[in-house]
């Protein structure tokens, strides 16, 4: 209400904060004629497609690597310095390098999203192994579980809730790097749309892009929570 009034009554310049009614018009306009010749849904699809592919690969590689680092102190000690060095780097700083390595095609965009979520998944999965209950492992050992059985029947299920949590966090981080990824010579995608619209002072499009980016990130997290409840219902339960 306040937001709408502030615009309609001219309290705030619509260029700074377009009111919801303008935004709704923008939605209709973009839905029909698209932004820069590309329909809105396509911007959306391009971005989520890029991100989902990068997330899938990050999970498929990051979870096993993190688990292995958690299980083997030697392996963990060897890889940890690299991971810890790369992880906090702002991914924007990597853009020049990435362009040199991967060119300006999809590869570069994939890599930027992938690397940011991958690194934090690795750290999270290895921490999850360290957090496995020693007491339950001991119980399994007195019941005759072999090392392999201890891993399959105790370490994995015990670490699963924390792995889920770290995947959720990492996907948030990966989604954040979407903008960085789409700064690299893109001509579609939500991140690109926001950057591009910003430089043409289309605040309404910027705002719409931000709302869509936020909602999509929220939807990813919601989906993961759903999966977590389905596949790790013992999360946070004591026994």
């Amino acid at each position, binding site marked *: 209400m306040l937001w709408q009034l502030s615009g309609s009554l001219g309290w705030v310049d619509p260029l700074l904060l377009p009111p919801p009614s303008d935004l709704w018009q923008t939605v209709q306009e973009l839905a029909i004629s698209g932004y820069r010749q590309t329909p809105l849904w396509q911007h959306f699809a391009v971005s989520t497609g890029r991100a989902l592919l990068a997330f899938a690969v990050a999970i498929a590689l990051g979870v096993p690597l993190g688990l292995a680092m958690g299980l083997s102190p030697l392996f963990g000690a060897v890889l940890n310095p690299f991971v810890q060095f790369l992880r906090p780097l702002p991914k924007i700083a990597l853009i020049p390098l990435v362009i040199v390595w991967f060119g300006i095609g999809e590869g570069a965009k994939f890599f930027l999203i992938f690397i940011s979520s991958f690194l934090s998944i690795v750290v999270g999965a290895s921490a999850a192994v360290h957090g496995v209950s020693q007491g*339950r492992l001991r119980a399994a050992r007195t019941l*005759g579980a072999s090392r392999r059985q201890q891993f399959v029947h105790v370490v994995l299920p015990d670490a699963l809730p924390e792995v889920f949590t770290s995947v959720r966090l990492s996907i948030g981080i990966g989604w954040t790097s979407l903008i960085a990824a789409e700064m690299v010579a893109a001509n579609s995608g939500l991140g690109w749309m926001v950057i591009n619209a910003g430089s043409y002072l289309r605040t309404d499009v910027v705002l719409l892009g931000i709302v869509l980016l936020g909602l999509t990130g929220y939807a990813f997290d919601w989906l993961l929570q759903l999966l977590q409840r389905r596949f790790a219902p013992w999360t946070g*339960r004591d026994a």
Partner: protein
Amino acid sequence: MSHPRITLEHVSKQFAAPGAGRTAVLDNVSLTVNEGEFVCLLGPSGCGKSTILNLVAGFEQPDHGRVLLDHRPISEPGPERGMVFQQPMLFPWLTVRDNVTFGPRMTGADKASYQADAERYLQLVGLQDFAEHYPWQLSGGMRQRAALARAWLPKPQTLLMDEPFGALDAQTRLAMQELLTDIWQRTRTTILFVTHDVDEALFLADRVLVMSARPGQIRESLTVPFARPRNPEELLTDSAYGQLKRDILHAVREEAAKSLGLQPA
């Protein structure tokens, strides 16, 4: 019959203390538990009772001395030595039934060989109606009973029990003690049982070991002479019971006072 199953020979154990030092937890402990014997270990909190069980289970190695099972040094845990912990340590991702059958499933036993036993143990500990529940859907006492059934099912030759009934209410505790002696009399499992409760020790044990304050040593070894099957009410009327309980309480209180840094009363 008096073949020693568990032997500790001059065992010492230290742990790294915060800072640079080390805490001596066990100091030159020697003890024997014979095959088929039921031995209770009493002593003040922190004197090293759980540490002794961990050594016998094979989770820890002694700094000095030897820990033997059937005359052979113990190097790692094994299913012939079952353990019930101070906490239930159930697997929250498994149902109660799957928790209870965890042992035989790991050792690859034929399902037909343990299925009936599993149901019987679930019944004995009063959890037959909760077999499909998950541990977090049980009360604390029910979880501990599930943990008991889980430890019994593989029929270990030796059972190490670390205050398994400490968290139970008085009635359930009595029922569990009777159940334990029942099963023990049939299976003649060798049991090393840690407790704080003198009455529990006198009801269960063939022999009571009283430990000193840390660094733990075996201060006294007392034979419990009462005929089995024992009845908790009849025991109370036995004059030898009162005398034995006084002796043990005296030793336990003296050591507890030491471990708390108080003057013995």
